[in-house]
Structures are given as C-alpha cells and as structure tokens.
C-alpha cells in the first residue's frame, strides 16, 4: 500500500477521520522508504535530539543509551538495540507518524499536524519536529545495534 500523505492533507484523497499529515512522504507498508530531506542525515544531532527532554520529548517515555537512565521514562519500548530490530525505513515511519501503524499509540506523530482539540496557540498548525530533525533521529536510532 502506498499512501501519499501530502495528498491526504490537501483533501485530494479520502482521509480517515483522524488523518494528520502535512509533510510529503510516501508510506509503503510499515515504512517510509525514502529519506525525508536531501541532505545527509546527522546521527550526532539525532543523538543530541534524543536526549532533549523539551524539544524531542523522547526520553519522557523511552529509555535507551542516549541520556541519564534516572531521567528516562519507561512507558514506551526501550530503544536499546532498535537498529537491530527495525530498518531505518521502519524507524522513519514510527517517528514520523506512529499513528499510521497504531492509531491508539500514546506516541505523538512527529511529522503530522495534530488535529485534536484544544491545541495551544503556540503549537497550532505546527509539527513537533521538522523533517531534517526526524531524519537525524532516524540515522541515530539505526546505529543502536544489539
């Protein structure tokens, strides 16, 4: 199955009720096969972002080898060794829009514009991260091998 998210956002496709999308990327199965930006990904920036409680928020829920263990959450899967379990293309969709895989997921969609209720004005119409940041995170997570 190939879904073009930009088309959904523009109303050209039949969007499900909770469709959230704004960045153009192609979904194939449980992957986004192509990188989200043309430039080379920066895994070291990805590592820095993973540890950032305020911008990426990842460590609020996930543990892994990217920040102080006592500051990490445990309500989402531990990301240690993630690169051995999932391909970069699979990781890319999970970071960009986990809800395309599991609509019930607690994890927010990082490259979708949230369309729920009561979104604070400062965040309205914005994605949590930009495509380059997601690509950097994907590059970093793919290096986490068992």
């Amino acid at each position, binding site marked *: 199955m190939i879904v073009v998210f930009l088309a959904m956002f523009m109303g050209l496709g039949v969007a499900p009720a909770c469709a959230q999308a704004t960045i153009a990327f192609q979904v194939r199965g449980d992957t986004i096969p192509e990188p989200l930006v043309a430039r080379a990904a920066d895994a070291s920036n990805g590592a820095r972002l993973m540890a950032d*409680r305020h911008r990426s928020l990842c460590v609020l829920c996930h543990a892994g080898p990217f920040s102080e263990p006592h500051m990490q959450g445990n309500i989402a899967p531990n990301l240690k060794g993630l690169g051995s379990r999932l391909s970069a293309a699979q990781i890319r969709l999970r970071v960009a829009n986990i809800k395309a895989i599991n609509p019930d997921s607690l994890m927010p969609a990082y490259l979708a514009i949230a369309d729920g209720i009561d979104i604070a004005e400062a965040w309205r119409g914005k994605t*949590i991260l930009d495509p380059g940041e997601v690509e950097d995170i994907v590059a970093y997570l793919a290096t986490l091998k068992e």
Partner: protein
Amino acid sequence: MRSAGLGAALLCVLIGTARAAEIPAAQRQSGSAFMSEATRAMQADDTSNPGMLSVLEGSALWNAPAGKAAKSCASCHGEATASMRGVAASYPAYDERTASPIDLAGRINACRQEHQGLEPFRRESAELLALTAFVGNQSRGLPILPPNDPRLAPHLALGKEIFDRRRGQLDLSCASCHNDNWSGRLGGSPITQAHPTGYPLYRLEWQALGSLQRRVRNCMVGVRAKPFEYGAQELIAVEIYLNQRAAGMNLETPAVRP
C-alpha cells in the same frame, strides 16, 4: 464544547480512549504512596511540612475581622475545628445561587463577597490558598465524600469526558497516563493515579502551595493544550470527577509532593 467536526472528533475520541480503563478501587493509591521516604516524612511532620505555614496563615485570616461590618469567618462559622470538619471532603458542591457547581476556593470567595462585602481573592493568591488549606486541613484524615446531588451529575459526566479525551499537540488524555500508565515513570518521575487527596498542596517543584486547578493546568500545558482558565466550569468539572474517582480515600491537606 465545540461542535465543529464533532463526528470526526468523536471517532478520534473512541479510538483515543480505546485502552482507558478505570483503576479498580482496591488498587487506588494516593500520590504519597509514590513519593520518596524523605518527602513522606516531610509531609507527615507538621513542623517540617511547608504547607503548614499556609495553614497557619489561613488560621489568622479566618479569625481576622474584615470589611465594613468587621466580620471574620469565625464571626459566623465559629471554631473551624468543629464547623469546617469534613467540609472540604465534600467539595466541589452545587451552589444554589449560581445554579452551578462551586469548588472550595470559589465558596470561600463567595462568602467573602456576600458576607464581608469584600473583593474576592485572586485565584491562586497566597491568601486564597491559605484559607483553602486551613479549611482543607480540618478534614485531614477524613475520607473524600462527594455530595450525593443529582444536579452535579452532568458536571461529573463532563469531567469524565474531559479526563478521557485526548487533547493538545501531543494528543494525550489525562487517562492516557493516569489510568493506563500510572505505575510507570515519565522522564524518571512516577506518573501516579491523579487522586486529589492533598490539595491545596506544597509542591517542591513549585516551591509553593498550589491548587488542584494549577496542577491540572500544568498537565494541560505539558501536552501542549490550551489550559482552561482558573475557576472555569471545565476545571471544576474535572475536580468533581477526580473527587468521585477518589471517593473514600483519605484527605492529607496540606500534602507535600515532589
């Protein structure tokens, strides 16, 4: 409530709350059960509990004559140890005059306006928190006993709906964490079950006493949602629901929390 896109929103709600299950009564735990031994000890000892300073300030305000008639709270209510015992355990309650629910801080302000002829204290002001803590402290050790008033039913339902509904840029509901993941840790801190057992309480993170409304607004900001205004009917509805959800649990006011 907004009605635009209600169908789509309802579908999202159904999906968003698919996992939410209420906590069985036997598994309910106050926030104090999740704290360190040191923080529990700080709360338990009145000489080290920083919230007791506000209770003392509240006691002074209770007895201080104010307004044109120079009446104090005590002028009408007498000794709070007798007249206020158990009162906080049954708030929010239904207010006949406004035909809407009122929380304890709102009741104190209403009394101040009607009987002392004074301007209401600002929400979250030191004075209002102190008086609320003082009245709340009179119920310490007593079980939360929500009023059995059918007029509160729609507000209770609204509170539950707000609690269960995902919101904000992060698309999370109160229930996402506090029903489904209360035994987990968020950024290293215990999530807890969100039972309002000790408000107003002294939060070490705030370095101050604060209300349940402040705490709920904190979480709303955390999920990047627009928080309800202090005193809003929505926040009082959430208080009503949380009290119902915690019915029978003992009050600890003034609690200490990390």
